């Protein structure tokens, strides 16, 4: 099949882009969340909130998530062209895709370098956690993680063809969502590495931060949609399709319900009743954190699907 507006009738109507599909959405979610996770991990490790084992495991999980999302991106490329993906670095002067490819590549390489000393056989490498070289690598990783989170929004907002994306608020929203998904993944990492007991220890910092981020993301989403609902015809059509059109169920139930309200209520209830320190509620809280990931992916997916072009003439 061809890609593009191939089946569109020859009539002058507002049309949504249909070639950037769920694979790109997963890349934006996966690589963005992975960047959010590594940024927060390095920061919280620096502040001694989490231990080294959690930080390392989180980085491994984040690396795998980034590589899986890159695999989805590769499968989105042309069937016979994907092996020439190295061309993608050629025009960083004008193309945000090229800039993003450079950023994500450096970020993955930095992660591998940071993780190498933890691999048996490489433990003698001179850039462990306590060394100057290690600190520089970690600072670099944080810088490129922040850059990638911003990139995941900038790549869409840089195009004025689709008004719904063409706003400086989109990178801000995507950075906030990357932080949310990263922070939402951290309890899952703690749970996987140390079990429910440790989760209770770090929970005093994680849960209030998560509640705050959930509220902030909800507020940003509201501001975003409100702004777009008063913008151009194409942007208003995008908002209509999102909140009351074909994508309304995915948006209200997935992005708002599962992604924001459900985890807010679950975590709020658990922490309010001090259940967060109880290992028995770990599964309950992990479900909330999983719901955040679902909402993060669906936000990217819905935003891509309701990207409506303006009239061509």
């Amino acid at each position, binding site marked *: 099949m061809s890609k593009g507006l191939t089946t569109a009738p020859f009539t002058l109507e507002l049309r949504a882009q249909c070639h950037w599909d769920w694979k790109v959405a997963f890349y934006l979610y996966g690589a963005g969340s992975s960047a959010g996770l590594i940024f927060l991990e390095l920061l919280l490790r620096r502040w001694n909130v989490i231990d080294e084992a959690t930080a390392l495991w989180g980085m491994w999980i984040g690396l795998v998530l980034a590589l899986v999302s890159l695999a989805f991106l590769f499968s989105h490329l042309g069937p016979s*062209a994907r092996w020439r993906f190295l061309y993608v670095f050629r025009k960083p002067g004008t193309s945000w895709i090229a800039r993003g490819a450079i950023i994500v590549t450096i970020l993955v390489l930095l992660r591998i370098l940071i993780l190498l000393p933890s691999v048996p056989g490489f433990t003698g490498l001179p850039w462990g956690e306590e060394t100057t070289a290690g600190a520089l690598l970690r600072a670099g990783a944080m810088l490129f993680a922040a850059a990638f989170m911003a990139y995941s929004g900038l790549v869409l907002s840089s195009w004025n063809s689709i008004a719904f994306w063409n706003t400086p608020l989109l990178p801000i929203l995507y950075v906030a969502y990357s932080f949310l998904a990263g922070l939402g993944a951290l309890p899952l990492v703690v749970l996987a590495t140390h079990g429910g007991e440790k989760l209770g220890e770090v929970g005093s910092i994680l849960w209030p931060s998560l509640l705050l981020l959930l509220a902030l993301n909800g507020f940003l989403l509201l501001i975003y949609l409100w702004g777009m609902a008063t913008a151009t015809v194409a942007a208003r059509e995008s908002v209509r399709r999102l909140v009351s059109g074909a994508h309304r169920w995915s948006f209200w139930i997935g992005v708002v319900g599962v992604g924001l309200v459900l985890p807010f209520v679950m975590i709020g209830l658990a922490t309010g009743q001090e259940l967060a320190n109880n290992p028995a509620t770990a599964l309950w809280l992990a479900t909330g954190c999983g719901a955040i990931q679902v909402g993060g992916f669906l936000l990217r997916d819905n935003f891509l699907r309701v990207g409506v072009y303006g009239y061509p003439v």
Partner: protein
Amino acid sequence: MARWGFTVDLERCVGCMGCVIACKAENGTPPSIHWMKVVEKEEGEYPYAKRTFTPLRCNHCADAPCARSCPTGAIVKRPDGIVVIDKDVCIGVMACMSACPYYVPYRWDGEDGYYGEEKVPYETVKYAEFKKGTAQKCHFCYHRIDEGRPPACVESCPADALNYGDLEDPESRINELLRQKNHFRPREELGTNPSLFYLTGKGGGKVGGGK
């Protein structure tokens, strides 16, 4: 050096789709890909309802958003202003398709021909010129332009609604038309500086933002 431009006279277009067919015959594009389109719009209500026709094609913008967004540099502008895609460099990212406000580019992933799985000899020859998984769009029939012939769509138009010419040449047919008729360029506010002008009626004046 010439800068090729294109005019579409909206008063003259009758929606015959001759340009669409001519483009397909010339370039052999697959069934779901249309480098040239004529879109219809219904306006007004009975008894004053009418249908208008607007031919759409690549505008060969001077500041082409497709070329800016392409990470591989596959989309390049020739010295004469024609924007072309190098299929050997394109990797099918589809950034150009998102960036183009006129939603002009397509990506061809290989597909059946007009008569099913088995392609007719014409399709076999023409499809071989495309590369699976790469973007494609109108290239202003540059192979004809280079030979001094008009693009296939212009040549086929029975109503003389489509014209082309050198925007740098004050005596060219296209500049003559632009002096004679009111005109506008599509989505000019986006800063793409298109080389395509829609003529809307008597009036004329300066060439859009240029001379």
